[in-house]
């Protein structure tokens, strides 16, 4: 019995240690890149370090820019998360996400980027709002081009 309880505790503790996405407090947390107060959940993104430290961003473009500006060492990055635009409570790892770049969908820092957990919804939104579907690498290139070159 004791061993079961002990192992349960161990599992609990270990799972608590595993770095993952944290809750953003809308209207309170500040974007680590542009310093804006984060106010729109459908765009709020985050970067999690290997030690579990979390940086929040008000938009997908700020998450990309933070990395481009070398604000965090590559080796320290554990994961990067973006919200599923239609269901903003769902966190999606950037490499699994589909991004829509459409001039008809405003995003907080003006690069018109929204993220989706699956390709179907992304294509549906593309049909409605036009634009191009991008992957994370293309989002990085786009941000680099608009803000850094």
């Amino acid at each position: 019995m004791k061993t079961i309880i002990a192992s349960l505790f161990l599992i609990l503790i270990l799972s608590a240690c595993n770095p993952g996405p944290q809750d953003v407090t809308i209207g309170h947390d500040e974007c680590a890149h542009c310093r804006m107060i984060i106010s729109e959940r459908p765009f709020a993104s985050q970067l999690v370090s290997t030690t579990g430290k979390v940086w929040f961003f008000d938009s997908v473009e700020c998450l990309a820019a933070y990395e481009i500006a070398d604000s965090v060492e590559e080796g320290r990055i554990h994961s990067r998360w973006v919200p599923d635009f239609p269901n903003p409570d769902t966190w999606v790892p950037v490499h699994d996400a589909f991004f829509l770049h459409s001039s008809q969908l405003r995003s907080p820092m003006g690069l018109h980027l929204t993220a989706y957990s699956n390709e179907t919804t992304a294509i549906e939104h593309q049909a409605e709002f036009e634009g191009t579907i991008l992957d994370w690498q293309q989002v990085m290139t786009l941000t680099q081009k608009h803000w850094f070159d």
Partner: protein
Amino acid sequence: MRTPSTLNKTKRMFRILLLGLLLLLGLFSFSFAADTLHVRDSLQSAINNAPPGSILYLESGIYEQETIYVRTPGITLTGRKDAVLDGGSERAILIIKADNVTVKNLTFRNTGISFRHDFAAIEVRNAKHFEIRKNTLEKNFFGIYLSEADSGLVVENSIKTTGTREANTGNGIHLWNSNYVNIEDNYIRGHRDGIYLEFAVHAHISNNISEHNLRYGLHYMFSDKSVYKENIFRYNGAGVAVMYTQNVTMRDNIFENNWGPAAYGILLKDIDNSVISNNIFRNNTIGLYSEGSNGVDIHNNLFQQNGWGVKLFANSTRNVFTKNSFIENTFDVATNSRQHNNTFKSNYWSKYTGYDLDGDGIGDVPHRPVRLYSLVVQQNPVSLILHRSLFIDILDIAERVIPALTPETLVDSTPLIKDPLK
């Protein structure tokens, strides 16, 4: 003596004058009669049928219809104050897509709320020379929304909503890709950002009051060559944010009572070659916060009773602070590095403890506005608990006498003895 010929001359002149007068009168009556159309219902068809240049006068009542579009140039929409355009909490109310349209003296309420669509009470889309004056906007998602709308006026409107913390409020006055817009004498309350500008070059913002907004009173990105003066920004969730912009003039504004962990009188992020003068920064967590901003001329401002008067990050360079008054701030100036390339000269510091023996109005010993304690707090915020303790006072005095940790170059060598603003 009048000869018959001169008599004829006067007669002729009289006749010409009379003719001119008649012509003028005719012109006037033409423009008056122009075409005021009284509207009671079916506003959209009234607008569609009105010839360019018509004035539509809305009688009292609630107009609750589909989103109304104005596609005819030169239309004026006006009416009784109790003519209300209602969005039924599900749609945008008025969308203007033609030049020279005026909207005056009307009441707009209850737009829809949406993540995907920026529903606004009054939207001007891809049109020029608009005038939005003296309207009352209540409980809308976005108030006045200008996208690709140039050379217009937004004047004397009252824009109020009661937003909560979650993102169910849009901005009071929102500009995107709109140039040469004047925003004057408006009152904005309870929106996400009171006034929001993104890619709005040559904006002129004056005499507005923006308060109790959830995030910023004024928020400004990529909007070069703009001027804002004589506005009041107070009790906003995070104050005012000015970002990624060059050549801005900000003068005679009041930034006050913005309290909170991330609240600033004004937040400067990547601002270049701008002027901040004669403003009042009072009762804010941080009066002026500067990150990555260069070549800003900051003079004749009052920084009073803020937690931090000025917080200057080392990546801000070539900024010049002159003739400002720093009065009773917990920390007058704080920074994150010993290396500095900013200038402080001839400011007034209420904390200055030096003397003026030669009586020239300039203190004889330099003033170092950065307290050692502010560096300690910067590194370890919890140490704020030691504020006002004897230990901290001794630490500060020791540092002032023999500066070892505070920035060497951050010094005012000509501090004023008298407050220049008094």
